[in-house]
């Protein structure tokens, strides 16, 4: 290190820069700390309300009791959670295959897109809860629930991927034409990579929706079927006025939703971090 460099290192930092760095440090910690504090305060407030108003635990349990129920009933609840997650994952996987597959077919044939896209929209805007009872009549419970979750989850993947496949740079399209690219080469080397960020955006939405679809379909299936997913547990606990267990199951569903979102976001980050603007952190 030369003398000039040492002087530079010792020199006091520009006050504006120093303030910016302090702000960044504060933001980094605050991003985690502030939501945690808010959560803790809400739980504390909930506990106080129950205690002060002397609300019985079969109406509103104290948060401690919910945590205890989660612990005691863990074996039952966890096996239900796994059933719901399996259904949601199966639906999501089918949504990815179906959504991307249909989107690719649509870009290969405009006629097919014109013929079928309106019906995909109709399927999407019809509330799944109103279709579910019918599907449950015609199919066994588990495939019916998967189908319901699929109906909800596949549309964002289809519409996003279709948009992405059609959003290729027009100059690159010309370049592929000039170099005599085949249909397959155009799809493989131009359209699919262009569509990747759009697809991943759809995937993040579809991940959450597949869980919602699974839970809604389980509710529609009710306790009559062979269902033993989390929605079944909530219904069952509700009939028995086991309110703490209802809360415990609710927290598990929310946790599962967060986990799916985190996972799809992470996958998206891994796939895009090298080249896409959304995954690049600005220097300043």
């Amino acid at each position, binding site marked *: 290190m030369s003398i000039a460099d040492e002087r530079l290192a010792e020199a006091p930092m520009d006050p504006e820069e120093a303030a910016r760095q302090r702000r960044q440090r504060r933001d980094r910690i605050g991003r985690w700390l502030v939501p945690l504090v808010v959560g803790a305060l809400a739980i504390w407030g909930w506990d106080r309300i129950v205690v002060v108003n002397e609300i019985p635990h079969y109406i509103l349990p104290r948060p401690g009791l919910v945590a205890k129920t989660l612990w005691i009933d863990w074996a039952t609840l966890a096996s239900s959670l796994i059933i719901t997650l399996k259904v949601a994952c199966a639906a999501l996987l089918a949504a990815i295959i179906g959504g991307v597959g249909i989107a690719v077919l649509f870009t290969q044939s405009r006629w097919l897109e014109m013929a079928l896209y309106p019906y995909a929209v109709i399927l999407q805007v019809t509330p799944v809860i109103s279709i579910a009872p019918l599907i449950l009549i015609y199919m066994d419970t588990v495939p019916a629930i998967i189908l319901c979750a699929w109906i909800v989850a596949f549309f964002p993947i289809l519409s996003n991927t279709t948009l992405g496949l059609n959003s290729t740079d027009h100059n690159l399209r*010309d370049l592929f034409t000039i170099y005599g690219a085949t249909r397959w080469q155009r799809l493989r080397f131009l359209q699919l990579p262009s569509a990747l960020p759009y697809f991943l955006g759809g995937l993040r939405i579809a991940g959450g929706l597949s869980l919602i679809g699974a839970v809604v379909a389980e509710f529609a299936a009710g306790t009559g079927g062979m269902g033993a997913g989390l929605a079944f547990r909530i219904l069952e606990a509700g009939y028995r006025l086991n309110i703490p267990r209802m809360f415990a199951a609710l927290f598990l569903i929310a946790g599962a939703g967060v986990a799916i979102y985190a996972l799809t976001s992470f996958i998206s980050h891994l796939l895009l971090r090298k080249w896409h603007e959304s995954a690049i952190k600005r220097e300043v």
Partner: protein
Amino acid sequence: MSGTETLDAATISARPPLMRLDQVGKTFGRDVVALRGMALDVRQGDFISLLGPSGCGKSTALRLIAGLIHPSAGRIRWDGPQELGVVFQEPTLMPWATVEDNVWLPMRLKHRSKASVKADIAEALELVGLTGFEGAYPRELSGGMKMRVSIARAMVTKPSLILMDEPFAALDEITRFKLNNDLLAMKEKIGCTVIFVTHSVFESVFLSDRIVIMAARPGRVIEELTVAEPYPRTEVFRTSAEYAAHCRSASEALKRAMGEPV
């Protein structure tokens, strides 16, 4: 190198033919005449600039030559090998691919494996001065460097004709001058023919030996100028009296094309 040779109009017109536009016209819709009756003999080794105001059909002419659109009148005939390289106004790189993979693209579309064309890619990158950037992604490069990758991609197949559509218009002047100098050196090295669309008089005079002046509404060719100054042209040429004289006559021709008093 042919550097010290003199260059005159006779030498230019004696070059072997590459392709020819024969009274080519293009009409969009019913009555939007983008180009009318364009005749142009492109000879091997030419550096032709298409110079004119917006709407004069120079980009249409380029798209016709590239085969992206087809003439509504006249025809295009190839006498030499029809191998094209293209550089657009934007670098037009695939953001998900590395520099090396972007340059590989024309070969890849011809089903050539990367291993089999490794040497060609390396040579093209060396030509544009980007050796060592093989693994970089486009977002990591400056505007000028991205344009160099785009040029490397156009040159990697050693095409007979390179079409350039205002490639340096969006760059700052310092970068543009540097790329102009380098482009001439690259052209000398691979010995291709270039058709270069520009709306800069200075750029067209510095780069080309033939300037085709075009006018708008309808798009058409007004006249052709010859810049019979020997290559390689360097910074010295940019400050010479000959350069200034050519710029003046090109400007005057452009003014005539736009219907203004000279």
